[in-house]
C-alpha cells in the first residue's frame, strides 16, 4: 500500500492535520473522515454537481479532486451555511420560501454553487444562475424554482446588508 500523505486543510474554518491515502477523494474525506455528510455524492464522475463545495472560494467537484492535492487549501461545505444556532443562511431561506428543493439530494451542490455565484454577483439574474448552476442536475424540481430561489437569495442578502448598514448608522 502506498505511503499516506499528510495534509493540512481548513474545512469550514476548522484546521485539520490529517494523514490520508493518496486515492482519497475530497468528497470521501469530508464524508468519511470529517463526518460532514452534507456533501452528497451522486455520479462520482463530475456530471451531476451534487458534490460541489468551495475550494479556496471556487465551486469545485469534490469527487474529481484528491484530498492530497489540497494541502494548505480552505474548503467550505454546505454545513458552513447555517448559523451555529441553526438559523438558516439567506440562500437556504430562499430555497425554502421558493420551493427550490423536493427530495433534496442535489441541494447541497445547488447551495454551494449559488454561494459562489452570490459572492461574485450579489444580485444575479436568471441567465447568471443558469450559467453558474447549469452543471448541477436536479431530477425533481424542473429547475424553475431553483433559479427563482437563487435570485431571491440575492435580494434577501442585499436587503440584509442594507439593514445592517442602516443599523450601524442609527
Amino acid at each position: 500500500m502506498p505511503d499516506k500523505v499528510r495534509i493540512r486543510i481548513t474545512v469550514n474554518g476548522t484546521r485539520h492535520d490529517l494523514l490520508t491515502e493518496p486515492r482519497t477523494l475530497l468528497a470521501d474525506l469530508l464524508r468519511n473522515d470529517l463526518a460532514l455528510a452534507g456533501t452528497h455524492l451522486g455520479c462520482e464522475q463530475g456530471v451531476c454537481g451534487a458534490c460541489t463545495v468551495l475550494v479556496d472560494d471556487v465551486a469545485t467537484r469534490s469527487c474529481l479532486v484528491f484530498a492530497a492535492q489540497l494541502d494548505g487549501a480552505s474548503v467550505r461545505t454546505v454545513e458552513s451555511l447555517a448559523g451555529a444556532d441553526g438559523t438558516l443562511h439567506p440562500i437556504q431561506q430562499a430555497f425554502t420560501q421558493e420551493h427550490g428543493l423536493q427530495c433534496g439530494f442535489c441541494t447541497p451542490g445547488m447551495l454551494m454553487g449559488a454561494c459562489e455565484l452570490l459572492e461574485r454577483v450579489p444580485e444575479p439574474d436568471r441567465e447568471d444562475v443558469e450559467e453558474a448552476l447549469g452543471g448541477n442536475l436536479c431530477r425533481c424540481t424542473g429547475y424553475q424554482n431553483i433559479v427563482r430561489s437563487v435570485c431571491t437569495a440575492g435580494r434577501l442578502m442585499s436587503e440584509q446588508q442594507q439593514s445592517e448598514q442602516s443599523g450601524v448608522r442609527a
Partner: protein
Amino acid sequence: MKPAPFEYAAPRDLDEALDVLAEHGDDARVLAGGQSLVRMMNARQVSPAVVVDINRVRGLDALGVTNDNGSSTLSLGALVRQRTSELSGDVAAHAPLLAEAGAQVAHAPVRARGTVVGSVAFADPSAELPAALLALDGLVKVRSRAAERTVAADDFFTGPFRTSLAPDEMVVGVEVPVTAGRSGSAFVELTRRQGDLPVCGAAAVVGLGDDGRVAQARVALCGAHQRPVRLPAVESAVVGADDPSAFTEAAARAADGLDPIPSCHGSADFRRHLARVLTARALRTAVARATSPKETTHA
C-alpha cells in the same frame, strides 16, 4: 474509495516531474486539472501506479504574448485553467477562437480546474479545445528529461485519445501564432444538452485580403473523425470566396475522407451531415466577423 491505490508525487519543479516520468513511463499519469483523469480513475478505466501532480510546479501557469524577431506568439502553460484562458484579455485579443471554444467546454466549475493543455493532451476526438488548437495552427511544447521538442498540433493528435507523446514526455504548454490583418474566427457546435461534449463542432479562422475576399482559411472539426481533424480541401476551396453561397459550396466537402466514430449521440452519417452544416456556419460567421469586427452572433 473508488480509484485503485497509487503512489502520489507532488514535484515542485519541472525537472523533478520529468524525473518521475522518466522512471515510471507508462505507469505514471500527469495530474493537472484532473477533470478527465480523476473521473477515469474513479471508474477504474485507468489505474496508474504513480500520479504526478504538477499543480505545484513553478512556472507552468504562465499565460502571455511573447515577441520574437517580429513574430508574436500567445503561449499557455500546462497549468493555465480553462476558465482563466476563457476570461483572459490576451486570449480574447489574440486568439478569440480559443475563448469561444473554451466557453463551450462543460460547465464553469469543471473549467475552473480543468486546463487547456490537459484537454489537448487527453486528445478526446469530440472535445472543443484540440480542434480549436488545430484551426489556430497551434504548437504543442513537449519536454522529457532528455529532450525538448515542439510539435505542430496536426502531428500531435494521432487517434482517439492518442497523441505522439512518448511515455516519458509531458506537454508543458501550447503556443498559437498571433497574426495581424483582417481576420475572424468562429467555433460552433451541436450538443445534446448545454455543457455536454459536442456531437460535432467546427472551428474556422479566416483572413481577408484587401479586396475583402478570403485570403487564408483554416478549418478543423471535432466529433467528426478518429481525431480532431483539419480540412485542407475545404480550406483551399474557400480561398478567393466572398459570398456566403461559396462558403456553403466549400463546406460541402467537409466530410470527404472522414471516418466518424458513431455513438448513441450521433451515427457516422449524422456526424458527416453535421460536419458540412457546421463548417458552413463557422465559415460564414468567421468571415462576417472579419468583415465587421463587432459581429458577434452566428450567421
